[in-house]
């Protein structure tokens, strides 16, 4: 029997008087690859923040590994949108990834051997070990995206939440990133927010469509029709399944 890792029930949340999500109930199972799709402003990023405990819901309950999000957020890894970052900030890739090893309970601690090993393993897994000393300013979009995924991996999470991991990269790099994600999915539960219906239907085990409320919910391969409904017209899906990795 698979364990429920995240349980949202009747959750309403948002910012400044607007509800970005309303009455959303959703369970995320251990080991699955769930894609969250939907139009801009549909509440996808808000839902991630509620799960991470960065935003408190106005109504409803959220449980992560059976407890409050803030109490179990160390078991989660979060990959924010790459576009959000100040690319002029002077920081190297390895220092960026090492941020995930910070711990509020040991504020003055120096990085330990275990910290350095976790950083090295994460860089290796994202195949950017050769970039470890490069400043973030000198990275391509795809390299920065992989560095951000590596940062989340360095905290050794059981669930990885990714916000638009392919929005700032070209299609080819997007495919590479999805291949890396599929590999990670062998040991880590994945929740991926995406605009990219093609990638999502090819790789995700299950698709949840969010447009303020949860409007559909389908296994990856069956999602196309439901998505057409969501976007209010036929959706042209590019077939990525031939490359393997479909569920």
């Amino acid at each position, binding site marked *: 029997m698979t364990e429920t890792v995240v349980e949202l029930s009747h959750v309403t949340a948002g910012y400044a008087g607007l509800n970005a999500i309303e009455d959303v109930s959703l369970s995320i199972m251990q080991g699955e690859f769930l894609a969250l799709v939907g139009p801009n402003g549909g509440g996808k990023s808000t839902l991630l923040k509620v799960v991470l405990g960065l935003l408190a819901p106005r109504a409803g309950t959220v449980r992560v590994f059976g407890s409050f999000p803030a109490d179990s957020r160390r078991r989660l890894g979060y990959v*924010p949108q790459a576009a959000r*970052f100040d690319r002029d900030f002077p*920081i*190297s890739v390895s220092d960026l990834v*090492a*941020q995930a090893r910070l711990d*509020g309970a040991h504020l003055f601690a120096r990085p330990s051997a275990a910290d350095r090993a976790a950083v090295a393993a994460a860089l290796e897994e994202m195949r950017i070990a050769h970039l470890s*000393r490069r*400043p973030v300013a000198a990275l391509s979009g795809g390299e920065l995206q992989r560095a951000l995924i590596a940062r989340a991996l360095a905290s050794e999470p059981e669930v990885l939440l990714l916000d638009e991991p392919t929005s700032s990269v070209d299609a080819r790099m997007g495919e590479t990133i999805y291949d890396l994600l599929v590999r990670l999915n062998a040991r880590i539960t994945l929740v991926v927010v995406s605009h990219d219906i093609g990638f999502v239907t090819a790789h995700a085990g299950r698709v949840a469509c969010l447009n303020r409320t949860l409007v559909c919910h389908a296994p990856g391969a069956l999602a196309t029709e439901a998505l057409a409904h969501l976007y209010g017209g036929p959706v042209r899906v590019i077939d990525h399944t031939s490359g393997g990795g479909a569920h």
Partner: protein
Amino acid sequence: MEFLSAFLQHGFLRNALAAGLLAALGCGLIGPFVVVRRISSLTGAIAHAVLGGMGIALYFGGPPLAGAIVAAVGAALLIGWIGLVRKEREDALIGAIWATGMAVGIVFIAKTPGYDTELLSYLFGSILMVDSSQLWGMVVLDAVIAAAVALLYRPFVAVSFDEELARLRGLPVVALQLLLLVLVSLTVVLLIRVAGLVLVLALLTLPSAAAGHWARSLAGMMAVATLLGGVAAAGGLWISYAPDLPAGATIVLVAAGLFLASLALRALRDRSISRTT
């Protein structure tokens, strides 16, 4: 040569150089945060609030340094509370503190007998008047700033680069942000003697912005900014000596010259890179 022999002869020049180098260290450690976080207007507001604190302290016969520290830290915490805790727009408050602090200072200094002439030295610095007790005060401020940055370097970088991640890692984000603003305000106080409150902003931003053209980490930026700040302090003093120019202003001008030179060098480098690729 004339400057060198004067330097060996006059204690006040040695004190001035020591003050300039101590100021450069504080600038070098905190300036990079001001630059990468883009909080120079907040820093300007803190600097002008200092005049209010010093004016009130002088009027009531207290030590101006204490008034300066109270006003600087108070302004930093007030702006930080509005921006970080209440998440409201802080720019109107920054403007209000900037102007009100200055006005309070002018009024109190005008009503304090014998201190009218001091006003100019607070505005534009009086590095040649630094005495050894003030130098020790600067050493203490530098030590506090350096200790805080050394102990909390990684958490400070994390909250500056990605506040969300810092929260997810359980860091005390608001406390760290407010502490950083307090360190900025202490640095402003450190610099008042050297450059005056009008020119403080230049010393906190120019060496660090120039360092930012070349540094690959915030620590590297701190090292280069401290070096450039030291060069500006020594060079500015030297230039000011023979023609008897105000040293605070020449120090800022050297810092501005270094910044422009760095900008030009980087433009040249970028052009040569784009040619070869």
